[in-house]
């Protein structure tokens, strides 16, 4: 009986923990709103990046395929949304129609990238994917002639926000005495989608497909000899990762209301990859943590660097933007030296990256 009681309390304490985290996440936007709506927007961006990083985690973390052009799928998703829900073509489809279309189109692009790179690994794959990302961005920049598809560098503006019938995610509303601003409403939607993404990631990881990804990451020749069709399994990783990117891009377009090719430059790919690596490749929770940290910390710095310098030296010696990149670089170097497998490493990746000779 004693053991049963113990198990019961253990299970209960676990659920209490989950309930507390859930409550905190529900209350969070209101706390942030008290500090300024900008912080709610930053929280939304953090969730969006976490979603995006989870997609990249499938490609890099699970299947071990280094992808430096991942932001292209984000861009494709964003443009699909923008073209189908803006005055540009005067189309205004609802978001629950466009997001799946965006996922599908990005998925096709994922296969387009995956197919020619099947035989590449490591550095070589990284270079080809990097090129792919740039190609997509340059196309977005130049597809304004002869037929104006993307509106070139000016980008597409006045993109529809998400709406559900009369319920518009961009409007302020007061429900039960609480003021729900647009960003707060988006926060809950994004949080729900992130939870879904986490569940999908976890379930894929512990499945026949997830094991096949692990196998090709560990030893491709052995994986093939064990009957794994590496072509299909790799394309599947690219397609799944790209679909995540496509959905995230659609959400980004709707929240921002404006997109241009400038949002999909190489540095963004590097940022998302950094979130995955810093947080812990292959570990869903690590990736989410990496995304949240890399979104919030720079914003905090932006907020603090100038006032601190003012009070210490009486003037701004180093611009916040400069110090941000400096600290970011320093953080990456320190991480690679002391925690090469990330903040919350997956057990398997930790073994791989801290191999003793």
């Amino acid at each position, binding site marked *: 009986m004693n053991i049963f009681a113990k198990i019961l309390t253990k299970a209960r304490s676990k659920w209490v923990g989950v309930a507390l985290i859930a409550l905190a996440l529900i209350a969070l936007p209101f706390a942030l709103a008290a500090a300024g709506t900008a912080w709610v927007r930053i929280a939304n961006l953090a969730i969006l990046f976490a979603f995006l990083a989870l997609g990249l985690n499938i490609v890099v973390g699970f299947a071990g395929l280094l992808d430096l052009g991942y932001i292209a799928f984000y861009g494709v998703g964003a443009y699909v949304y923008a073209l189908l829900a803006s005055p540009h073509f005067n189309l205004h489809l609802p978001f629950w129609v466009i997001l799946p279309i965006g996922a599908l189109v990005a998925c096709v692009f994922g296969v387009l990238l995956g197919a020619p790179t099947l035989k590449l690994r490591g550095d070589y794959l990284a270079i080809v994917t990097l090129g792919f990302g740039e190609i997509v961005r340059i196309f977005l920049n130049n597809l304004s002639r002869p037929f104006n598809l993307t509106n070139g560098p000016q980008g597409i503006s006045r993109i529809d926000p998400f709406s559900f019938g009369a319920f518009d995610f961009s409007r302020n509303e007061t429900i039960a005495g609480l003021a729900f601003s647009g960003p707060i409403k988006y926060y809950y939607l994004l949080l729900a989608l992130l939870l879904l993404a986490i569940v*999908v990631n976890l*379930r*894929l990881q512990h*499945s*026949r*497909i*997830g*094991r*096949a990804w*692990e*196998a090709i990451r*560990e*030893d491709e*020749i*052995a*994986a*093939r*000899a*064990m*009957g*794994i*069709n*590496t072509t299909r399994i790799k394309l*599947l990783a690219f397609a*799944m990762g790209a679909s995540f990117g496509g959905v995230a891009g659609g959400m980004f377009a709707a929240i921002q209301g404006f997109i241009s090719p400038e949002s999909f430059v190489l540095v963004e790919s590097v940022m998302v990859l950094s979130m995955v690596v810093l947080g812990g490749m292959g570990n869903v929770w690590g990736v989410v943590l990496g995304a949240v940290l890399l979104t919030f910390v720079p914003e905090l710095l932006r907020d603090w660097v100038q006032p601190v310098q003012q009070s210490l030296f009486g003037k701004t010696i180093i611009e916040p933007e400069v110090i941000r990149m400096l600290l970011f670089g320093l953080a990456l170097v320190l991480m690679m030296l002391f925690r090469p497998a990330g903040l919350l490493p997956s057990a*398997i*990746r930790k*073994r*791989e990256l801290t191999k003793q000779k």
Partner: protein
Amino acid sequence: MNSLLLECAGLDKRFGGVLALAEVGFSINRGEIYGLIGPNGAGKTTLFNALTGIYSCDAGGFSFAGKPLAGLRPDQIAARGIARTFQNIRLFGNLSALDNVMIGRHVRTRAGVFGAILRTRATLAEEVAIERRALELLAYVGIAARANDVARQLPYGDQRRLEIARALATEPQLLALDEPAAGMNATETLELKKLLERVRADGTTILLIEHDMKLVMGLCDRVLVLDYGRKIAEGPPREVQRDPRVIAAYLGGAEGAASS
């Protein structure tokens, strides 16, 4: 039990100017333990790689259970029922022993992305079956207690056993083993011999590359001897052992025979 399982005819494999395999031909019957021996560099592993689709043949080829294997990818050949182990062990080193064997079940199971995401009843049932079968196989090769250990950290002999368990997980008709006793001590080799006899008794045909002559002589029904990519003898171990050409090949390549 004299039906033909694997047939190889006129097999050539060239690497640049080197003829690694020349007009090799042999056949393996169901239920046999068939040995493949020869001095170092004779082309034994090349033959394995050609058989399992890692290399393509320049001429001739294999026919398995009556159907040609030409042009098939390694995964398709595994699906046909040929599983192999590697001379320089190729486990999924950072995964647990159990995961290694579960991956071996891939080719005989079917759950896809949607099944995994939705956790359908069929997928869950399949997962349970995969894990149960993997545990059975670990027990079968005698390393059940190591199920949750990391493959890379297993003792050498256990790694060899794990590779066999992983190969058996694909439900092969033909199990191709590349030097399974390499690096094993006498006790481990004896246990391996018992294991392989059991595998054969349970209906799996075995193709065996091995340098441990005592093991080959005690285990194999028939032996094929390769030297410089050519077949120089074939037959029951006792006869092959006395064949003057075999003796010449081994004594001629004295250091090859001694060191391995």
